[in-house]
């Protein structure tokens, strides 16, 4: 009986350890600044810094100016706050992606002779102001601009609503 009890405790301990080791989908933000946050009704406000986002639980952790932390459900925040979080998330993901690509490139470089490497083009990106160029198409970024152009040309607008940056990481 005693052995059964010991065995059960050991099993529980290893299961707990396995749960603790399971990767939690938390994105940490290291270089965010304090800003004002509002709830969905814009009635309650709070000055805090974005610390992390749990993508599974759809929650974010904010650090107030006095050092206390508060966890907020994403859907309780205002639209502009959610957009801010999405932008910060994209930034972190882009950085992670860039690192991963550099790591892979580094691995490949070890296998390729230095003289055979193709040098990346030094041509600067064309500044298109309020547009994004993808596949040689200049996508306007604001409805107001699209409206003005469409009226001038008497053409319909094709509006491509998409998750992520059209010319970047999606």
């Amino acid at each position, binding site marked *: 009986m005693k052995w059964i009890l010991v065995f059960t405790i050991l099993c529980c301990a290893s299961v707990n350890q396995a749960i603790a080791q399971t990767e939690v*989908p938390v*994105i940490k933000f290291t270089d965010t600044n304090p800003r004002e946050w509002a709830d969905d009704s814009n009635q309650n406000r709070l000055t805090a810094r974005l610390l992390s986002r749990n*993508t599974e639980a759809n929650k974010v952790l904010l650090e107030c100016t006095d050092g206390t932390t508060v966890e907020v459900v994403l*859907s309780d925040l205002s*639209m502009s706050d*959610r*957009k*801010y*979080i*999405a*932008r910060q*998330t*994209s930034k972190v*993901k882009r950085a*992670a*992606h860039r690192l*991963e*690509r550099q790591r*892979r490139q580094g691995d490949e470089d070890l296998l390729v002779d230095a003289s055979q490497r193709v040098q990346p083009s030094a041509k600067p990106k064309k500044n298109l102001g309020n547009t*994004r160029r*993808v*596949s*040689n*198409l*200049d*996508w*306007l*970024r*604001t*409805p107001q*601009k*699209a*409206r003005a*152009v*469409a*009226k001038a*040309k*008497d*053409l*319909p*607008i*094709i*509006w*491509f*609503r*998409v*998750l*992520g*940056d*059209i*010319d*970047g*990481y*999606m």
Partner: protein
Amino acid sequence: MRTVTFSTPQVKNAIAHHFVPLNSNIEGELLAGESTGHALNEPPGDCIRGNGRQNVQTIFMTPDEEIFHVATGFLAPQDILTEMQFATKLFNRLKAEDENRYDLVRTAHQDVLQNLGSSGPMGGINGQLTESMREMMKSAQNGQMPISGMGGMGNPFQQLSNQFMTQDQRFMVNRPLIHRSDFERDPGELVGRGKTFFSSSKSSNQGIPGR
């Protein structure tokens, strides 16, 4: 879509000559879907028409930002050309119409709805096309560009795609010429209120958490 559809010359030309292209990033919107992240140069995954409708919406508007046609989810080159033909024709008719604009949009989409089950995605509404669009369609049919994501994928896929298209058409029947700002306030009527996840990349980015 940006990898497959917008890089197709016929699609690029059609957009450049017949439309004003506008793009919005819907990240952060409550009803936006989720996706594994992928870069512009990564290979696309297999899609059928209408895949990931919460992630991608192609919306046609008048210069006054009234929505007169929608196509949600993934559109292969031939699909978007068909949608653009429909939109161009409807837009030209709208310009000539003063009083019954709402009825015109409603009727056009009701016709599509009636035809969906029997004569293909856009059967019965092709009508008069602009000459350049006709050329684009001809070259698409001659195999000079990728064929529709729906084509050759078998009946269940076609049925699923038809369901997506039916939902798009119903939205336009119910909300003809809805203004962009009204639509943005509640896109749920078009894309649904559930959360969808869409992975469009086969490459090695699966380790990066989805949105």
